[in-house]
């Protein structure tokens, strides 16, 4: 696994444990028609803290071949953002690969990320990279799983009362403000369906280059310790009506407010100890 790919994996996992979980206390009038207000509310949400989780990721390519990865993480909030420690548990050739990330809430600060490869016994400081690349060979990219920063997009409300599987949503279109943002996130246009109940973007559709479209669905959304959490995420890459590949992420276990999660977990020496 290359550092950049693993860093994306890490970043994605941060969001898996944080950004796809929001407290029901997040308030926004269901009648709002301002797309920026909706996405700002999504971005501002109070998320779960001191989370310990295990996720199973199943990747199926167009020929039907399946690959499975298992990831374990610990994460916690701090004054400036979120800290996460992540380890790959399977497959065997990636086992023990670890990532430590200090995510700063302030967008102007680069996140701090270290990658530990057990085969070289080294934790390497890695740079934050573009968000458009796939991580761990999956359909997800860094950008897919991070909260959309509203200021990066021209927004329009396509339907303030769209229904997705019977759930009321805001249907919003987002177009990158610049070519640099488009390159970074990998989409020329995004469509989002934000649930009015959970304030989670339960469906998204991103137009990529080469005629590809990526669809992401957050499923089995329910409260864990009072926090609305998506337990299954499905990403599909489609081209000309044909499914190229699919990735399903499922939470195997999850606990918020775990007292064993402390600041000491988010250090390079801890990363080098392995899972």
């Amino acid at each position, binding site marked *: 696994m290359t550092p950049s790919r693993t860093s994306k994996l890490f970043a994605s996992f941060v969001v898996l444990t944080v950004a796809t979980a929001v407290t029901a206390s997040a308030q926004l009038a269901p009648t709002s028609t301002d797309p920026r207000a909706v996405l700002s509310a999504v971005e501002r949400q109070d998320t779960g803290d001191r989370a310990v989780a295990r996720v199973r990721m199943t990747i199926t390519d167009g020929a039907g071949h399946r690959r499975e990865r298992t990831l374990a993480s610990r994460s916690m909030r701090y004054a400036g953002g979120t800290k996460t420690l992540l380890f790959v548990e399977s497959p065997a050739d990636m086992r023990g690969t670890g990532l430590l990330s200090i995510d700063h809430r302030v967008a102007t600060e680069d996140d701090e990320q270290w990658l530990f490869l057990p085969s*070289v016994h080294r934790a390497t400081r890695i*740079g934050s990279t*573009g968000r458009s690349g796939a991580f761990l060979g999956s359909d997800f990219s860094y950008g897919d799983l991070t909260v959309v920063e509203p200021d990066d997009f021209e927004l329009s409300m396509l339907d303030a009362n769209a229904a997705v599987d019977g759930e009321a949503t805001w249907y919003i279109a987002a177009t990158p403000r610049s070519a640099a943002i488009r390159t970074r996130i990998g989409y020329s246009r995004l469509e989002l369906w934000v649930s009015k109940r959970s304030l989670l973007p339960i469906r998204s559709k991103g137009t990529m280059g080469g005629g590809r479209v990526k669809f992401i669905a957050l*499923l089995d959304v329910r409260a864990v310790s009072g926090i609305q959490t998506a337990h299954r995420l499905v990403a599909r890459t489609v081209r000309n009506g044909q499914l190229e590949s699919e990735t399903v992420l499922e939470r195997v276990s999850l606990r918020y407010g775990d007292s064993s999660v402390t600041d000491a977990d988010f250090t390079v020496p801890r990363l080098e100890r392995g*899972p």
Partner: protein
Amino acid sequence: MIRRQSLCALAAVLACVAIAEHAAAQSEDDDVGFGDLDTSAIETTDDEPERASTTYSITVRADSAVWTERLGSAGFAKLRFTSDPRVITRYRDFRFALGIRAEGDAAYVGQANYAPRVRYDTATRDTYAWVLRPGETFVAWDRPRGGISMGFQSVAIGQGEALTVVDLLNPRDLREPGLTALEDARVPILMTRGGFFGEHYRVEVVMTHQTYFRLVPPPLGQWSPIRAALLEDPELVSLGIAGALATKDIAWQQEPRMFSGRSQSLLARGVWERGAFSVGGYAGYVIDPQGVARLPDAATLAQNRFSIPLEHRHFGMVAGSFAYTKGAFAVFAEGALDIERPINVLADSPVDLLIDRRTLARWMGGGRYTNARGGVLTVEYAQGLLHAIGRDDPPPLVPTSVATIVARYDHAFARDTWRFGSVVAVTGRGLRGGGFGRVELAWIPMDGLRITAGYAIYVPTDEPSAIRGFERHDRAMLSVRWDDSWTF
């Protein structure tokens, strides 16, 4: 005018068709993208997700190669089978690891007179045919802000990846210069580590209790840069010494022994990391991994088979490291001062060898760039400088001012099903010693299975360097690797 109107109408019709087709494609995409989703509830537990466990894992590899420039005569270069079984478990604050490395290379085993096969000398066969050594085998006591561990371990020190000037504790596998993967290069040895750390700092003391320098090519081995230096030196050739040496079977006699009072070394490090910066300081009394040679007496040299003592003596080292990361870029550097480091120096006679101690300054710098699609480019440069050389001091036998530059590019694509790796290196005084390149393409048809094909090319010059004499060492490689693990 009519024509223009017709064209406009045609364009409008085509546009309508295109829009209709686009809408149909969109609808088709949506049906596939959002259709048939599994909305059932997942059985998720909130039990302790990070339960205590024992993991058994194994890596099995077969690495083969042919000398492409010797295919007609003796092209069979390598058929090495490697096995790495490992167990790791935890109990409360303790970690236990047990591992072993076993290797056998059919190109060096048996030596039956099968063509095409090179017939190697005994010293070469002893080095390359079989390896059996401990893998990571240790017990560690982990506390939230510190810990201690003892056993056969590997520790990476400093910031350099392919090149480093401070990471001297673990011996390296130097049998095939330029071909050993980074993950195979470091050999675990018996050591004790202890330290404490905070959010932005770590302090650690490492004491090694073992030497392990057997994974180096023998003096006249295929991969020894000394081979060409000895056998092609005009003075030695004219004296007839080179010709006499060529018929001999010469090995290194590594000193001190693997376990002895002189096999201990000590290194302390402190690292401070904050934001984009990382700064490290190191001080130690370490064993010279390169070693200095002593020539045996004349009677020994006259024998057909003998060993040359290669002494790994201690020296003091103070060093520092630095790293800075910004966006997709990272830069890093290391500097070290070797105090009174033993080196071989030239004597008046070409058949004599002297040992002296000198103070050396060494440094390396590098950068890494990660592109948006996950490709990683790393460039590193290292340089050694000799200090405290007086007017009458004899020059070093092996140039200490050697520079090396290494560039690597790695990229995984097609959902990590394919991985491309490449390395280019140039070395020698003033980078005039030649260079080598290597490309590899790995196919991962399923998790755990990796099939890699590659090619390496060497372009040495007559200047002293680590690849001198490698004119006919180009090789094509094919390897198969299988990883598996079981957790209970």
